[in-house]
């Protein structure tokens, strides 16, 4: 048993921290205030080779494992939660489906451009009437000669409008629910694909979220990911590791909130009430970090990790929310002022309890795994 990061992961952390603090953090407040995409930050991440953390070297990536990915997102989130989720969605649910389920031709065609950051990835599963109940999706993709014709509306799509490639889930057959779902790779410039409403959100202002409208979008068979009807397991597998990334994001937000509260306490003095809060928050974050790293470690080893990833997502995001709120409370008036990092962390953290499977869905997943006879 060795519960410390291996030297290669520790040095990756140090390198990403340096990059994030120098080239991402300086834009975080502005990106939040102006609701703008963090161009500079994402470019810096791409230039550092971190858009392809999970992509094997032969396809132009860094060829690192899930633990490295979690550490990377954690460090980015300490600097800027918006940048973290942009990179997270790109890397996990936006890219991993190709890595895991793509054929050789698809990998060669798409992965190098995703790895370099030339293309930003995105994941289009959710629909207006199909959120937690993903199998109820209605976007249609009937076969039509050499390809498929996609029609429907996807919603809450992270990286909307910025993505060069969307992994889109649509219904190819009449089979009931999950059995009729197929995954497609749809380029951002495909005719018929357009951006619908882009939402104003409570937090994560730098990360665009909105509707993806598909109107008679022709997708060639070469862009079908996996077999017809195989889409739902692809989505679920993508979300399993996506949850590791979101856990990393939660850890980053929580850690920076704690560190900022701690600095404030050091500067202005502190009483036992705040000391106890700080102790509780730090303890929770430590426990959440180990849950996330455990899920990542299992994933890296090719072992089942669905339950562990859901536990990590549930605990780390609930922790991030609590930490952000309590850190603001420690900061007091100053923390509640608009533009303060404390109030930004509160707004940013809330999204994490909702996306990539709300925490209620995580509890459903965990309970299902617990009640399986093992």
């Amino acid at each position: 048993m060795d519960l410390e990061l291996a030297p290669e992961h520790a040095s990756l952390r140090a390198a990403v921290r340096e990059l994030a603090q120098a080239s991402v953090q300086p834009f975080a407040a502005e990106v939040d205030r102006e609701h703008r995409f963090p161009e500079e930050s994402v470019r810096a991440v791409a230039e550092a080779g971190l858009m392809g953390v999970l992509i094997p070297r032969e396809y132009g990536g860094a060829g690192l494992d899930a633990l490295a990915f979690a550490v990377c997102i954690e460090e980015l989130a300490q600097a800027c939660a918006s940048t973290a989720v942009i990179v997270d969605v790109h890397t996990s649910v936006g890219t991993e489906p190709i890595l895991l389920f793509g054929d050789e031709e698809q990998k060669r065609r798409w992965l190098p451009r995703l790895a370099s950051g030339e293309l930003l990835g995105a994941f289009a599963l959710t629909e207006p009437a199909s959120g937690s109940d993903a199998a109820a999706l209605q976007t249609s993709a009937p076969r039509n000669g050499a390809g498929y014709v996609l029609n429907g509306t996807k919603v809450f799509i992270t990286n909307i409008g910025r993505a060069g490639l969307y992994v889109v889930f649509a219904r190819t057959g009449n089979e009931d629910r999950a059995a009729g779902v197929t995954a497609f790779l749809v380029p951002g410039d495909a005719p018929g694909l357009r951006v619908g409403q882009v939402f104003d959100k409570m937090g994560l202002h730098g990360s665009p979220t909105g509707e993806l409208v598909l109107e008679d979008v022709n997708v060639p068979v070469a862009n079908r990911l996996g077999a017809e009807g195989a889409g739902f397991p692809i989505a679920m597998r993508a979300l399993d590791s996506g949850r590791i990334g979101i856990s990393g994001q939660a850890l980053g937000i929580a850690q920076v909130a704690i560190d900022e509260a701690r600095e404030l306490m050091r500067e202005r003095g502190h009483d036992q009430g705040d000391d106890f809060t700080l102790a509780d928050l730090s303890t929770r974050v430590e426990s959440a970090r180990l849950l996330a790293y455990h899920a990542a470690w299992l994933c890296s080893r090719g072992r089942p990790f669905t339950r562990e990833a859901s536990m990590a997502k549930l605990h780390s995001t609930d922790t991030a929310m609590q930490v952000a709120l309590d850190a603001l409370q420690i900061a007091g008036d100053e923390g509640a002022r608009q533009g303060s990092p404390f109030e930004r962390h509160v707004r940013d953290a809330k999204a994490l309890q909702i996306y990539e499977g709300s925490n209620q869905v995580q509890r459903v997943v965990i309970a299902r795994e617990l009640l399986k006879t093992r």
Partner: protein
Amino acid sequence: MDFEFSPEQVAIRDTIRELVQDRVAPRAAEIDQTGEYPKDIEKLFADNGILGIPFPEEYGGISGSSVTICMGIEEIAKACASSSLILAVQALGSYPILVAGSEEQKKRLCPPLAAGERVAAYALSEPGSGSDAAAMTTRAKKHGDEYVLNGTKQFITHGSVAGTLVVFAQTDPSAGSRGISAFVLERESSPWKVEKLEHKLGIRGSPTAQIVLEDVKVPASNRLGDEGAGFKIALAVLDRSRPGIGAQALGIAEGAFAYALNYVKERHQFGQPIASFQGIQFMLADIATQIEAARHLVFRAATKVDSKAQDLTKVAAMAKLFASDMAMRVTTDCVQLLGGYGYISDYPVERMMRDAKITQIYEGTNQIQRVVIARALLR
């Protein structure tokens, strides 16, 4: 990183698991009801090498690794928290010797403990000195090549059954915490008096004694470390033992949850197992997640003990704090999952809930853990 036990540890765990299943679990309810120390289980652990786990091989033991100790405590506590203290306090009472003893002292004092011929105990608290350990008044005066001890020690787990008792006492009361020294008392040559045994909410099979020392003579060769080094030793020991309390809390919670999980699958209401209700499922998910989170903190702290890490104090306090608070919540929820049956003594979870409470209190209350953690963070 590597989240798994070594093959040797797995082998030890499986042995303990089997022994606990066969010999400890069937006795747990009775031990709780009678409140009697299970001498038979002490012997079972001694005969099977379990009491040797806290000691390295060179001192007659089989491990000395905190990870292995915690693993053992966790396994036993799943069935019987009182019995898990037989191992936990063997470690606690022996740590001062292992941490601060000279080679001669370790070679002399450890082998009988490792063999399970005697059990150890640790006497720090006093009636007027709990969280404020440095305020102790027990006095040790030197006369020639021995010390004479006088005072009262409070809440001494296994103080009545131990053959070896590590006692902290003032050798220089004017020096405050720097005037405290540590002594090893052997029952035959330095007999102490058990003034009273406490009646308790939980861990009722683990005797908690008030000990009175009246002119107890201890040879100077049984002083651990220098005069005045006692307080440092006491704290160093607590850093090492707190992960074990975390492991005990973890085991109690796991034991309660295993029972409750099985129960909700079998219990039918409204024509279906109550496990099919989402309200119940969410409780299960939260419980399992909290247990898992605590488990990692506990074993991380244990690995820090084994690697003598710099931040051990903080991490050990975190493990103890989080795991014991978790165990209290989880066992309370497990009673809830069983409803009325959870509240009655025919079912084990009410015992586990009572047993969990002490883990928030001893080896430093959870308030003290927060003080320790905050101090480390704000240094």
